[in-house]
């Protein structure tokens, strides 16, 4: 039984009140938190097979080790997030093993194949940076105590993933030639992919309650700006072209391409030339899921049925 009405709880958390257990939540608060944690858990989980299949492109045993250390972290992060969901009355079993692949809530970027070492390290540099951007905002602002504490470990390890990405982007850029071209091609599709990940712009955003319940602090557009404020200077410093720049007058990063726009997943190519599309068209593409969706989901759970039968 909730101790507060929805309005009381919203007012309390805006004042810094920390919720510690499901007994103190209103149904609205619980539902908003479940949505947020499901996206978080699914994103961590799906990053693992995506990075795992890419790790075979590692150029040495040492780099294999760092790539697999990252994968191990992601699986632990997923486990922690699903465990938090269980405390809210959700079933980890159902979430991981009971859903269709297209029902997972991870971003479209983790439905794409990572086909070479450059794509893996740009994923670390861009996608893990997006993860840090989103999760450190949650860490700083969330009103849910158990999540805040769990994120200490996650943020610490995400920072390592990001460093791995940046160090390798620098190495490939410095090498020049084919290595640099491969890096630029990865940046070309992965930069717009990450920007889209942050979702609807603020002027179109339906009310989600995540800000009212203090489950996060920044809006989608603000988070996009935070991500670009690190990523654009990084790329410019390495001489990599990105379709965004800093505008002195508005003191904001602005995009140099139609946003949002259509993506050809087969060719790994954004159709800038076809101009802007609607967010409904983006949601349609996300809903249809990308080329690796089923392969990634099945790869993390294919042995479940057989082994279960033997063990019980």
């Amino acid at each position, binding site marked *: 039984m909730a101790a507060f009405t929805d309005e009381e709880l919203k007012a309390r958390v805006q004042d810094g009140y920390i919720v*510690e*257990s499901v*007994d*103190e939540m209103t149904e609205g608060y619980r539902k908003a938190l479940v949505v947020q944690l499901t996206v978080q858990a699914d994103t961590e989980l799906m990053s693992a097979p995506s990075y795992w299949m890419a790790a075979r492109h590692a150029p040495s045993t040492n780099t294999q080790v760092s790539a697999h250390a990252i994968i*191990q972290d992601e699986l*632990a992060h997923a*486990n*922690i997030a699903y*465990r938090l969901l*269980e*405390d809210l009355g959700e079933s*980890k079993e159902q979430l991981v093993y009971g859903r269709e692949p297209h029902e997972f809530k991870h971003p479209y970027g983790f439905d794409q194949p990572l086909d070479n070492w450059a794509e893996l390290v740009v994923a670390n540099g861009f996608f893990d940076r997006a993860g840090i951007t989103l999760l450190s905002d949650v860490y700083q602002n969330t009103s849910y105590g158990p999540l805040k*504490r*769990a994120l200490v*470990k996650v943020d*610490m*390890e995400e920072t390592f993933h990001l460093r791995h990405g940046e160090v390798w982007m620098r190495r490939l850029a410095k090498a020049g030639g084919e290595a640099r071209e491969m890096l630029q091609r990865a940046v070309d599709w992965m930069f717009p992919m990450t920007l889209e990940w942050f979702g609807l712009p603020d002027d179109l955003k339906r009310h989600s309650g995540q800000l009212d319940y203090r489950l996060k602090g920044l809006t989608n557009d603000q988070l996009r700006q935070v991500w670009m404020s690190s990523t654009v200077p990084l790329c410019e410093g390495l001489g990599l072209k990105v379709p965004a720049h800093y505008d002195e007058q508005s003191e904001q990063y602005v995009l140099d391409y139609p946003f949002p726009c259509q993506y050809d997943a087969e060719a790994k190519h954004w159709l800038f030339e076809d101009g802007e599309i609607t967010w409904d068209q983006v949601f349609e593409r996300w809903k249809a899921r990308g080329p690796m969706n089923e392969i990634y989901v099945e790869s993390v759970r294919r042995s479940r049925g057989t082994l*279960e039968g033997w*063990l*019980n």
Partner: protein
Amino acid sequence: MREEVFDVFARKERGEPLRHIGYVDAPDAALARVYAWNTYDEERWFEMCVVPRAAIIPVNRTDGPFAANAKGGAA
């Protein structure tokens, strides 16, 4: 697979308090030790322990994650 919750406690260094750092689901204590060590590997812990959640008896609260044993709990 039937699993139960094990709470994980650890301290970084001598002289530091044992802190609740998270939890794992495991079918038994032996696997809970392995899962905890592999999941919470962000530090070189001086000491780590796992406790079955069912063994935690709350003293002053009747709600929250340990509420199942709130009424006196296991004798």
